[in-house]
């Protein structure tokens, strides 16, 4: 799963620790999500998106092409 967390964080000039505080998780958790080494649970993904005032699909992007675009599976 790809994420725009780093970009959104930079826009607000937040450090990982600050974002972690806003979301209520550890800094290591934010770091692991940002680097794509950990996929958050659905509730956590919604929580992160809500902190940025965005929808979950604006923050997290599913990478598998077969599932990413519904039109892609019709061919």
């Amino acid at each position, binding site marked *: 799963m790809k994420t725009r967390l780093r970009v959104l964080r930079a826009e607000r000039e937040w450090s990982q*620790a*600050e974002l972690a505080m806003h979301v209520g*998780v*550890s800094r*290591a958790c934010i*770091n*692991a999500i940002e*680097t794509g080494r950990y996929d958050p*649970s659905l509730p*956590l993904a919604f929580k992160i998106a809500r902190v940025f005032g965005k929808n979950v699909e604006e923050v997290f992007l599913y990478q598998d092409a077969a599932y990413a675009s519904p039109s892609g599976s019709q061919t």
Partner: protein
Amino acid sequence: MSPRREPVDPLVVKKQGLLRLFYEAALGSAAAFALAQYSHNLQRKALLTLSLLGSSFVVWTLLRFLRAIDEFETRYFYEALTFAFIGMLIFLIGEAFLESFGFSRVPGYGNVALAVVLWSAGLIISSWRRHWRYE
């Protein structure tokens, strides 16, 4: 211009405090239990009661710690528990094997202490792995 200071996360402080309480209570409880073995009558009962209360407090801090950690840390917590569980299984099998050759069993409180030590070792190994992977 002074460098930007990272904010102190109250959740991190809470987790560290709970872990410290856990180990202090575990050590206190073990010390009271050990002292009780060399005491008599009322003093022994009082020390055993203190040890039991300390053990209950240990369990309470562990449960509070479990509630304070996030889903990412939970993964590492369960890794440490798995490590401790497998370690205890190996130890108990070895103990049963040696017992059949006439060796005496380790007392119950020794098993509890070993479980805490193995869990702590598991936590240290998990946090090292996390540090090298993610930080």
